[in-house]
């Protein structure tokens, strides 16, 4: 579909590209664009982080991104373009892990679309983060179980479902 771009980008091949995301969601119909950029940060749960490796089940991740786009379109009920790209492989501090951009006629829909999409990516896409620490140790992050299907219209993942959402 023309108004939805989804991608998984191997870090060894390229970095995620915010300018490309903005370009994709730009449209004469749209006066509002919202972008979320997730980056690798240097500290988590009391430990000094030096890098992150992302593992993805790529075909299902891409399908999940598309489903999120379709859901956003139904939820927002306005014209929109949505860009979702996630990095794969070994990332260093400051590297871009995820870029989500939404273009809509007005800012309210743009913010909502972008928020809905990034929360869904974090909670539903088959992606795993392994943190590497300054002491040489590594650990897979605890995450959200996919055993339970998300309930219809449950867009408010603001932290009342029991696992704290430190991620």
């Amino acid at each position: 579909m023309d108004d939805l771009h989804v991608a998984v980008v191997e870090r060894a091949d390229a970095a995620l590209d915010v300018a490309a995301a903005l370009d994709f969601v730009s449209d004469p119909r749209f006066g509002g664009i919202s972008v979320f950029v997730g980056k690798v940060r240097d500290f988590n749960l009391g430990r000094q982080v030096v890098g992150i490796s992302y593992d993805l089940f790529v075909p299902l991740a891409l399908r999940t991104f598309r489903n999120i786009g379709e859901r956003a379109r139904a939820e927002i009920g306005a014209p929109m373009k949505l860009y979702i790209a996630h990095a794969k492989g070994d990332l260093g501090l400051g590297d871009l892990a995820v870029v989500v951009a939404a273009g809509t006629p007005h800012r309210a829909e743009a913010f909502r679309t972008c928020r809905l999409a990034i929360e869904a990516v974090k909670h539903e896409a088959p992606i795993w983060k392994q943190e590497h620490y300054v002491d040489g140790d590594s650990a897979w992050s605890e995450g959200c179980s996919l055993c339970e299907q998300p309930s219809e219209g449950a867009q408010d993942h603001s932290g009342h479902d029991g696992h704290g959402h430190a991620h």
Partner: protein
Amino acid sequence: MKVRIALYGALREADPRGHLELDVPPGSTIADLRELLAAHLREHAPQVNAGLVRISAFASSEEILHNHREVPADLELAVLPPVSGG
């Protein structure tokens, strides 16, 4: 029947090949497969927390397969621990 299961995230450490094969009786459900995988890990990959399988999902490349679903024949599956993207 043989079912090939691709491993992701923390469960990758169960087998350096990134997948394993289980012998599954025909007609088994995903719930049955979950039990078989947990037992396999306890025996063959004690370094992995087999309890992780309890909160992992099974999937094809197209969809999550919930517990009541029959294990599809001739289709590679994946086991997905809790996710942590973004």
